[in-house]
């Protein structure tokens, strides 16, 4: 896998290479170079299978990380391509022309993270949620437990921490 990274580095600006297992590596690429890189990997390097496309929210550094995971059926190796997006203006090029199912992934990311993929068919349509009015749910600043407790009717809990309970019962004055 290291060899592939070296080879790719000649043409693309890559960074943060991590080899998790001999057959799985992750690498970060510049946002502008992603589509050429994916096309290159698909057409030249036989990474023909788009395994998944997902996003990770790094709220602390105000970034979204998109991970494109590709699989090579001949060498049976995977490469994960990371792209960092600005969290305030998350826009990414679409890759639905490379893989048909990418448009579904992109549609989901648009709904769940609010990442836009201009040109991807149907990307604006709601996919999973219906009538959702809050912020994109998978963003880390959306607190699902809080939302759930505020929105739905929960049975009031009646629990005690052993430590605090024992203090109140056995030695309240200390």
């Amino acid at each position, binding site marked *: 896998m290291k060899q592939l990274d070296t080879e790719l580095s000649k043409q693309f600006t890559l960074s943060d290479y991590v080899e998790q297992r001999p057959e799985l590596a992750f690498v970060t690429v510049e946002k502008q170079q992603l589509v050429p890189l994916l096309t290159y990997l698909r057409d030249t390097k036989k990474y023909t299978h788009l395994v998944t496309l997902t996003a990770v929210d790094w709220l602390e550094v105000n970034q979204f990380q998109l991970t494109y995971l590709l699989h090579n059926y001949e060498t049976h190796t995977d490469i994960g391509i990371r792209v960092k997006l600005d969290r305030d203006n998350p826009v990414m090029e679409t890759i639905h022309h490379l893989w048909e199912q990418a448009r579904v992934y992109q549609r989901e990311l648009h709904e769940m993270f609010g990442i836009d993929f201009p040109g991807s068919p149907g990307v604006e349509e709601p996919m999973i949620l219906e009538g959702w009015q809050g912020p994109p749910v998978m963003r880390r600043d959306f607190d699902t437990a809080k939302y759930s407790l505020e929105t739905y009717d929960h*049975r009031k*809990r*009646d*629990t*005690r*921490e*052993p*430590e*605090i*309970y*024992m*203090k109140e*019962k*056995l*030695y309240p*004055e*200390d």
Partner: protein
Amino acid sequence: MKLKDILSPFYVWKRAFEKPYSINTLTELRPGSPTYRGFHKNDVSKCIGCGSCAEICQNITIDMVPVSETKDGDSGLRPRFDYGLCCWCALCVDICPTGSLTMSNAYTWVEEGLDKDVRETYCFTPGVDEKHWENEELGYHRPDEYELLHLNRLPMPHLPTEERITSFIEMVKGYSREQAVKEADRCIQCGICTATCPAHMNIPAYIKAIREDNIEEGLRIMYETNPLPGVCGRVCTRRCEDVCALSHRGEAISIRWLKRYLSDSVEGEKYNQILASEIKPQNKTVAIIGAGPGGLSAAYYLLKMGYSVEIFEQNKAAGGMLRYGIPEYRLPYDAMDKDINYIVSLGAKLHYNTKVGKDISFDELHARFDSVFISTGLFEASKLAIEGETLPGVLYGLNFLEDVTHGKIPELGKKVLVIGGGNVAMDAARTARRLGADVVVIYRRREIDMPADHEEIEEGYEENIEFHFQAIPMKIEQTADNRLEFIWGNAEMKQLEEGKRPVPVMIEGSRESIIADTIISAVGQSTNYHWMEGEAIANIKFGKWTIEADRWGKSSDPKVFVGGDIFNRVADAISAIADGHRSARAIDSFLQSQTE
């Protein structure tokens, strides 16, 4: 289309002559399999209400609710399950440190829902609310091969026995960082220990600090309730470990060694910086009689509250029983001095070699200071009350240990007999062993009744100390060659009173003897109040052994407070520290009320 394709499906008719798949009766329920994860059961007599089940449950299924029946080391809470939330993953069963929580193979619970809120109906406390599956034998129990908890503690490295019996070097080596973090990781943070600790130290919090490698935070947490952590980290009687949730199926967390690790990890010079807090000076003075753990603890908290404190100590160094009663191999003087020096550095004024009643009168203290805290400790050894006790060669444990501390090592001879089963007896025995004598320990009851630390007894065995149990002393005689003959009678344990511990009763006519060079009696300590005289004691009420005081240590004279061994009767360091802390707060509120 082939003819075969049309005829082939008629094969299905063959089934008409076979046994149907259907289960025979629909109304009778098939029992769940023997390991079925059905409804919960809880053996409430085993449950200690530690709340681990509630902690691991991701579904907030488990509420801890109070029950009336409790026992020692029991929070008084029991898990209540909400079957509107449960997912029957059985993690609660797997983590249960006592093994009280299990599952039955019952699985049917139907409720009608129109007229009530079934969410309340589906809540129940297993073992308390009676359910029909209560006595179901089958059902999920944690398989033996599968364990979520680490039940065994990390072994503490000790000096090898051969080295141990020849020197007074501290025998416990202490945990390294990796070991401490690993040991701290075992903790399930239930907090039952906190309630049991006399000083109510926030044990889970400082264990968490160790786990997260935040030593300074850990030190701060310890000092909130205990200003002598280095001492307690070595010699505490650690009742917390007796009730540790993990001790039910495995070994308790080494809370004492973790405390020691924390205090050893910080250099004494840094204490001031780490523990720095804003001190608001108060224009009041407090006298403390006795620089033992109780006095030092009171001094620390009073100093932190801004009072000026003067301590009067009859010996030439502070520490009291810690210094003069506990041998160096258990509590090295360096470790103790580290704690004491920090307290002194806060501004405590220590008067050494000053015995109240002799060098300075109690009246004077009472008049000069705004408040007086008495923690003189049990400095008098109890008598054996048998014939021959006054013979030369018969020593008292306390005096013996004190002499060793002062460097006055008495001539022990080859064979030493120690009478008693407490920590002082063990200390005396093991000190004598280190001084080169063969030691025999004589105790009235059985081994399990010994008040001494279990570990100490075990280490005593390792050090080749001999034990005689159920032996009631009868008399001591001087032999012809100037040695001592100790005569005792064998006893049997009798349950005289229901609910109390059995009492040794002498077997008629039994008589055994042993010849030794020295006999060390360590059967208890007491105190006296002869030093308290004058007008100032007019308002103080004395009990049989004690000064009468409320739970805050406040005596009938509002200015005078008591604490430590003379007050709490448990007579261990941590109780004295707790008294000191408690009284310090009481003194504070008394002095504040004076100001107003």
